[in-house]
Structures are given as C-alpha cells and as structure tokens.
C-alpha cells in the first residue's frame, strides 16, 4: 500500500531524510516514532507532497512519486501528481489549521465542494456523516475559535475524512492535547482503523504508539532504523539506537502500563459490536 524506498531530502547542506525505507500495509495503523528533529514531520509532509524530496521513490495508494533529482516534472505534471496523490492522502496537522472563517460544517464541506465539485447538499450529507462519527453533530454551526482543542482536532479529522481518502496522516496528534484526551484520541484511531483507512501517525510519545499501533517504525537520523509490531519494537528492540531511545523513556513506562489496562476496556466495547463511534456525542 505504502512503499517508501531510499528517500533522501536535504535542506541546503542539511540532510533531513537519509535513505528512508519502509513499507506500510493497507488498512494498518503505523506509528513513526523517534526523537525530536529526526525528520518525522518532514517524512509525513513528503508523503502528501507538501514537501518535495530529492532522491528515492514512494508509492502511495498506487501513485508513484520520484525524487526531483531522479525525475524532473513539468509544472503540469507536478500539478497532476499532487492532485492524484492528495485525492488518496489526507493529513491532520499538529495544530489542526482549521479555517477560522468557516463553521465546523463549512470546514468539512469546503474541499468536497470546490475540489470534487460535489453539490452542496450532498457535501453536507457526507460532512454530517463524518461529524457524527467524531461526535460533533451538535457543533456544526460553531466556529473553530468556539471549540476546545480536542473538539478542534476532531473537526480536522472530519474535514480530512470528508474527502474520503484511503490514507490519513497525523502529525503529533497528542502533543496539543492534555493527557485525559489522549485516551480519547486512541479510541478514535481504533475506530478509523475500523473504517479501513490506512493511518500513519507521527509521534514521539512511546506509550501512545505502543497502545494504538499495528506497526511501529523507529526513526532516527532521517531513516527508519527498525520496524515491527509494538511487541517486537518495544519488547525486543534489535538496534542499539532503538534500545537507547527506549531507555530514555523508562520513567514513563509505569504510566504507559496503566493506559494499557484502560485500553482493554475500549476494545471490549468495540468487540461487542456496539455502534462505531470515534468520540462521545456532545
């Protein structure tokens, strides 16, 4: 589904992505984990073409992207590439970047109407569907500034979902939220997983990664050091870099265990086949 092969990205003399290589299976939730400044956000932005990379290859949902040094694109080709890529890939930013001049509903229908040319009525139906999934039906006439941080994030998710992408990228979804909300985000990701979306989350929060991921990729120095299930990466890390990073988080492990326990309950609820909900209705 997603194949990243030897991707290199430089800012001037600074090599930020250095032969990054990894794969992500369709429908999986993958966390890219790593220390600050290792190039996680840059990786994510390259996957959405908000940044171009210099060398290497990416294949995302069937769209092939090559490094700018490997293949020069004309302006028209570039436009076509980003259009095709972004039709498949949505992103939820760290600070959400909601459109402050539009209501919650307006945020969610803007792109379907202007990009897909959906009739307004139809776009509203789709948007309401996803707003109810994130539990924000009651807030559709609110403006972003009138919402809490957690609510804003859910609007951003609904906005991305309304374009019905196959892949959703999340940059640091927990960093702007207080600890109680993190659990709710985890629940939301599980539910997104159930929608069949392929999800890539960038985080440096180890506990969060352990709880929600099907796959964890440990990133350092601009490339994927190690990839595997949470059990493999956290339980039996193969590389010294990974082990060092784990050790630095030792203190927080206890908190992580508690969270693990509560996560069990969430899965129980989902298993019982009650209706899918990404958040609590308010």
């Amino acid at each position: 589904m997603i194949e990243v092969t030897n991707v290199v990205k430089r800012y001037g003399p600074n090599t930020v992505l250095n032969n990054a290589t990894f794969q992500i299976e369709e429908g999986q939730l993958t966390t890219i984990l790593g220390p600050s400044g290792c190039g996680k956000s840059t990786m994510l932005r390259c996957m959405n073409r908000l940044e171009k990379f210099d060398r290497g290859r990416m294949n995302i949902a069937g769209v092939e992207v090559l490094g700018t040094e490997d293949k020069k694109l004309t302006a028209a080709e570039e436009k076509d590439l980003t259009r095709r890529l972004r039709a498949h890939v949505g992103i939820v930013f760290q600070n959400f970047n909601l459109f402050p001049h539009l209501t919650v509903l307006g945020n969610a229908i803007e792109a379907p109407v202007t990009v897909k040319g959906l009739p307004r009525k139809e776009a509203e139906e789709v948007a309401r569907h996803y707003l109810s999934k994130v539990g924000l039906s009651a807030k559709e006439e609110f403006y972003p500034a009138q919402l809490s941080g957690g609510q804003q994030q859910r609007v951003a998710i609904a906005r991305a979902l309304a374009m019905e992408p196959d892949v959703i990228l999340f940059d640091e979804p927990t960093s702007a939220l207080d600890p109680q909300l993190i659990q709710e985000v985890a629940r939301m990701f599980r539910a997104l997983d159930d929608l069949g979306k392929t999800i890539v989350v960038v985080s440096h929060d180890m506990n969060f990664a352990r709880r929600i991921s099907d796959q964890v990729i440990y990133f350092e120095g601009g490339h994927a050091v190690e990839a595997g299930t949470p059990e493999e990466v956290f339980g039996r890390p193969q590389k010294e870099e990974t082990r060092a990073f784990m050790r630095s988080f030792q203190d927080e492990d206890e908190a992580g265990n508690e969270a693990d326990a509560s996560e069990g309950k969430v899965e129980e609820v989902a298993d019982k086949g009650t209706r899918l909900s990404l958040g609590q209705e308010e």
Partner: protein
Amino acid sequence: MKHIISRAVAIFLLLLFLPAPSFAQSALERVRKNGELRIGTDATYPPFETAEGGTFTGFDIELGEAIAREMGVRATFINAGFDGIFPALQNGSFDAVMSSVTITPERSASMLFSEPYYDSGQLIAVRQDTQNINVPDDLTGKKVGVQINTTAQYDLEKRAGVQVEKYNTIDLALQDLQNKRIDAVVGDAPVLKWMIFQSFRQLKTVGRRFTDEKFGIALAQGSDDLRRAINAALWRIEDSGEYNRIHEKWFGEAAERALAQTTGGGAGSRAFNFDLVRRLWRLFLSGLWLTARLAILSLAFGLPVGLLLALARVQSSKILAAPAAVYVEVMRGTPLLVQILFIYFVLPSFGVNIPAFWSGIIALTLNSAAYISEIFRAGILSIDVGQMEAARSLGMTYAQAMRRIILPQTFRRVVPPLTNEGIALLKDSSLVTIIGLTELTRTGQELASRYAAPLTIWPVVAIFYLLLTFPLTRVAEYLERRWRPVTRS
C-alpha cells in the same frame, strides 16, 4: 509650503518631458475651424479673473470675449491652476492664456505673447500698524508673501535677504499677513487694492508700484498667425473705445463701490459669513460631487487592480512578481502630482489624449492601486502558512485555496488600512486641480479669492470633506462588524 515646492519641482520635471508641439494645422486655422478660442485662466485673481460655478467674470474675461468677438469666434474659458497653466498651453489644452500674465524675457523664451493689454506693477501690502516698510529695500530681512510662480516671486527672489513665502492664491498670503505670520505681501497693484478694499481692512498698500509690468496674452510657440489675429483684434477694440469701456467697468471708481455692495462690504476675512455660504452652497455641492466621483471611481478601480498586483507579488512565478514589484516601487516612489501631470500633459504628445476627468481617475487609480496592493499583500502574508497548506492538502489548487481560504480571511483584516487609504485618496484627489478640475478644493480656492473670504470658505470646504469621509468610515465600520472573526465569547 513643502507641497508647493514639490509642485514646482514636478512642473520643472514635466517641462523637460514636453516636446515642442507640432500641430498639423496652424493655430489660427484651428481656432477658425472650431469657431472657438479656448482661453486658459486661473480664476482666482480678482478683479482680473474669477469664477463662480463655471461662470467667469473679470477684466481679462471681458477683454478675451471682446477679442474673440472681433475675430468672429466665441471665447471658451478653461479654469486651470496657475502652476499648471503653461504646460497645459504647450500641450494644446487651450489656444491662449489670459490670466494676468506678465510678459517677461524668461517666459518669452518658451512662448509667444500678444501686445501688452494692461499696465500693472508690483505693490507692497502691510498691516495698518506697520511703519517701517515703505519701499522694496525695506523688505530685506523680512518675510514676504507672494503667489507662486508670479513675477512678484521672481522679483523678490533676486533681492538678497528677503525671505519669500509662496502661496497658492493671493488671498491666503493676505490672510497670513493679517494673522501676523509674515511681514508683507507683494503682488499686482490692482489685485492687492481690490482684495484689501473687499476684506482685508486691517491691511494697507504702501508706496508706489515698484515695477513696470505689462500683461500679455500667452500663446504656444508656433502660434504666430494666431498672435497676429489677436493683436489686430486688440487694436480694433482699443480704437473703438471698447477697451476703455471694459477698463472703466473694472477699474473705475464706480467699479469698486459696486463690487463692495455685491459682496456685502467685506466682512469676509474677519468673521464667518453665513450669507455667503447660503448663497454659494450649491457650488460647494458640485465641487463635492466631483470630488466624490473622483474618489469613488478611483477606489473602485484601484481595489481590484491593487488586489491583482498583490496576488502577482505573493505567488511564486517571478515573471509576474517582478513587474508588479517594479510597478509598486515606481508608483510609490514618484509624487502623485507628477503622475497626474504625466498622464494629462505628456501622454498627448504620444498621441494618447485623455480628457481631464479621466486623466485624474487614471492617475488616482494607478497611484492608489500601488498602496492598496501593499495593504493586500501584507494582509495575505499575515495569514498563517498553515492555512494554505491545509487547503492544498485537501486537494485545492493554489487559486482555489487563495480564493476560498486565504482571501476571505485577508479581507476582514485589511478593512481598517483600506479605509485609511480611501480617506487619503479622497484628500489626494484635490491634486487634480492642477489639470483644471474644479473639485472641492479648487472650488474653495476660487471662491476664497473671488470673495476674499478665506475664513468663511475653508471651514466650509473642510465640513464638506467630512461629509465624504463620514459615510466612508461608516461603511468600513459596518464591514468590520459583519466580518468580525468569531472568537470565544
């Protein structure tokens, strides 16, 4: 007075641009064919030339009409500020200038003059209580007011130690003298006498005329046949006694008494004259209407042009961004006055002949667009880059993101600075007086000198400007309220 100095510089620059006019037909042929003699005049100089709502009166006016009649054509007077009147003559805006123009060697070098039609001379005016100024030599070390670009200015500038203060119109110089900000005023004897008699009773003239000056009708170079025709007409008028009749009407003893009665005995300079305002309010209104049309149309065109310039500058292609940047640099870096003069006076020599009103609109539009574009550009740049990224990540094109996401947020931010620009534009529109448009400020100039009543006229002009800016700020307030970004209440 900086304003006036920049004007003088602007006109000097402009004269460098002006090529010698080359008319296909001779001046006289043109006048005969059109059946009209177009005469430029700065109608702020009683008793020679004044205007009231497009009706001209004065000695020069009646003489010009008599000359035209002798030539078998009709006279059409065109109002123009004195500092722009000679460029306008050269560029063909009119056939002749009759505006109390003294014949000087300098002026004769760049234009033609008819035979002299009036003997004038400079006279000194001081306050009633001034004792120590009687002859020109007494002016050394004193502050002396003159009307800009007049022979009075040139004469005083040759005298060492005289501090020359220049005014747009002579009534303002006299007002300043009365207010004790300057020590004396020098100007054409009949005008000073008329003004003092009318309104400035605390002033007096002293001594005798200390120059001999002759007024002539100024013509563009190459108008030799027109000059011969005008001279012939002038001689016939003198022979027939017509000249004496007109002279007696404007400068005879009866004239001064009659004038005094029509203006209510010269309370003008000392107190606010309600009667005058009641009689003249329609004229202010038509000046206001012209100012409003100039400002509103310029703003209406300037906003979209400014927006396009801003959009050209914020996008990534240099092909569009660089010319837009150069345009803004040039338009902001040159005085609006020069731009107005360029469009009205210089473009015709390249075959582009735009009427005064539209020249004014175009100049104000092009100028304000540069400032407006910077307001829009700053507004666009103030929107978080995350907004563009979020829009693009959802699949919007750059243009869609700009139109749907960035600009709507920009507009609500730029309303206050745009209001500022609109008000500035409204006031800047007064600069078009130089190409003879009688908008609000020019109306004020004409009436203030016509009635020698600056203290009545200028406050009224100010109030009429307020009448324009007031609705503008109300509209801006409304937009700001409507577009107020929603925040936590």
